[in-house]
């Protein structure tokens, strides 16, 4: 089973990329499970016709309340099939203001493993859509515990998204030494400044020592699909955007690169690199 984790800054479009990637992989014939690893539990909405599905940790909390444990959870209550045939899971999180969401994500993943969710549904590609940034050690647990083996970073031309991607690369660098996890590539989800992004993001990927996998343009078609609660390959199968996601799925399936990244440790260096590219772009 391929275990692919999508990391990136909050709001950068991880859920959009993950969901459309899941749909494209499913179209290629893979049995895909998308696991949202964000307490907001909104990762799978696009695949679930805009609906929120119940989360693993909600169900877990219910079982604890009645004095039972995770083994009392029925897989049917936490794994849902999208109308398109993709398996959907949301890890969820503790109630706001209490508990540890990072540890919660790991607990949810462990519950899926303990209940043999992947083999029960014959999953061959699991996509983990992991909360925005590496906000605390808890959110790097899917890497640490070996759930996420191939890590893709999503970023745009915005400096903060690059900064977050670099930070996540630092976490991957730290954790990759422990096991099989490695950085597999960078995906650009454009914020509209395409010329700059084409110039900077491949160079940034090179600096991290990882492939630049795909450029996803800012597009009204993708936005319309999001609003409609359906992935692009289903909603607009003949569009150019659908082709982009098919290419992304193909590139990911064919990509066997896993590297220990070489992130930029000095923020000033990252800023200089960014500024230099910005100046060239304006010229």
């Amino acid at each position, binding site marked *: 089973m391929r275990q692919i984790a999508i990391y990136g800054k909050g709001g950068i479009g991880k859920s959009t990329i993950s969901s459309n990637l899941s749909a494209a992989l499913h179209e290629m014939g893979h049995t895909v499970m998308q696991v949202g690893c964000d307490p907001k539990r909104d990762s799978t909405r696009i695949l679930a016709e805009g609906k929120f599905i119940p989360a693993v*940790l909600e169900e*877990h*909390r219910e079982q*604890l*309340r009645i004095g039972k444990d995770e083994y009392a959870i029925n897989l049917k209550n936490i794994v849902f099939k999208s109308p398109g045939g993709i398996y959907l899971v949301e890890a969820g999180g*503790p*109630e706001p*203001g*209490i*508990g*540890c969401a990072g*540890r*919660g994500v790991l*607990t949810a993943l462990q519950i899926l493993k303990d209940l043999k969710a992947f083999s029960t549904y014959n999953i061959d590609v699991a996509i983990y859509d992991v909360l925005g940034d590496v906000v605390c050690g808890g959110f790097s647990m899917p890497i640490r515990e070996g759930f996420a083996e191939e890590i893709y970073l999503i970023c745009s031309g915005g400096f903060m998204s690059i900064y977050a991607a670099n930070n996540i690369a630092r976490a991957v660098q730290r954790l990759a030494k422990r096991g099989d996890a490695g950085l597999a590539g960078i995906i650009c989800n454009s914020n509209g400044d395409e010329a700059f992004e084409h110039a900077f993001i491949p160079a940034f990927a090179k600096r991290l020592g990882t492939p630049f996998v795909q450029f996803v343009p800012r597009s009204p078609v993708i936005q319309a699909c999001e609003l409609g609660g359906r992935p692009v390959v289903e909603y607009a199968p003949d569009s150019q955007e659908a082709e982009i996601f098919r290419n992304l799925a193909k590139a990911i399936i064919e990509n066997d690169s896993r590297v220990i990244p070489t992130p930029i440790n000095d923020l000033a260096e990252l800023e200089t690199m960014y500024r230099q590219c910005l100046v060239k772009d304006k010229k």
Partner: protein
Amino acid sequence: MGQEPIKEMAGSSTSSSEACTDPYLRCAFNGAALTALGISHSALLAHSPQGCEYLVNNAFASQECDYMETMTLCTKLCVDEIVHGGEDILARTIREVKDLPISALFVLSACGPEIVGDDIVGVCEALQPEVKFRLVPIESAGFRGSQYDGIDIAMDTILKKLVKDDVEKIPGSVCLVAPHANANPTWPADLAWVKQVLFRMGIKVVATLTHRTPIAEIENIASAETSLLLSHDAGQKAADYLSATFGIEQVCKGIPLPIGMTNTQRWLTALGDRFDILKTAEEIVAEGERMVMATCRRKWPMARFMYRTPAAIVADATVGIPLVRFVTEEMEMTPELVALYTSHRSVWELLEGELKSLGLNPKVVYGTDVYKTRKSLQEVRPRVVFGSTIERHASEGLPVAYVVEVVRMMRQFRMINREYFGYTGILNLLECVQNEWVMGWRSKERRYEAKW
């Protein structure tokens, strides 16, 4: 002489990569438990994993609680409570014991629940109407500091939550603060000596913060005219609070605790001065000194042959600072290393004042850990160490002939409490030195080392 003492603050002398820095002190959770368990007719609920609860057991032993009277409970948190928070299990546990015949339940939080945001204060407030006793939440996660910080945290909560301010002052009265922040393993004997002296002087003890203290005494603390801090390591904050909030004057402030002849005499005189009973103080001093000298004449301890021997003192500030004078004056040794577990400013000031007045210039390490102690012993190479079992191991391979175990971090079984404060305290300390000296002669190897 003439040079400034070498000062090292916690963490200043070694980088973390250089060595393991084992602390001497336990965490704040332990200090809070130690304080809460000093209140009688109450129970303690550790909102913690069961590993932390071990520290409650340790505090239980240190406060000499009786398991027939004092109950300890634990929520035994596991990963589920880290993920979802442990407020539910805390509430459930409190409800389960709601009919306990006690006056207060102290709820202490450890690191885990505080990291994930459990609001023990909120839970206790919500459940207070349902239970028959006072709920006293103490936010005492171990990461808040050492056991001394935990003692301060717990005393602060207890004072703010329980003390009534509408009480009449009792003339000639005192509140004893932090007797348990004392590395003498049988510290209740020190407290007992203080109480006995106060009784003889006609000073009324309103409350002890804390040791076998009924809640009613805590509630009544504001009636004390003075406070008497029995530790140099913790409790100053409580004494300051009592002074600022209830006008309770701190006596014997800034002088070493009564260990050794001069310290005891100075401390008793300060008390006598404040309460206008100098004559009684002088009588106690005279009797005590006579008793010590008569005993020494009869028993004649041979350890007096350690005259001018280079010595090291490794202890908490409570025992360690007064020991400097004891070692110098009574034992006539030369302190060449003073390593204290604590490092706050009042400890600095007190120790430096003592060193100056004794004309000593030893190496001084504040906030020591085991590694720094070992390095300092290697550097100073004393012949005698006043410390604990830890220093016995830390000085292996060094030419340390005697380790006088006056503060024992490791447990050693003792049925009878022995004070270091006061005049019998002097004899107890002399006994420790004498026995160590004798033990040296019992071992062939150590005898050789001791001799040559």
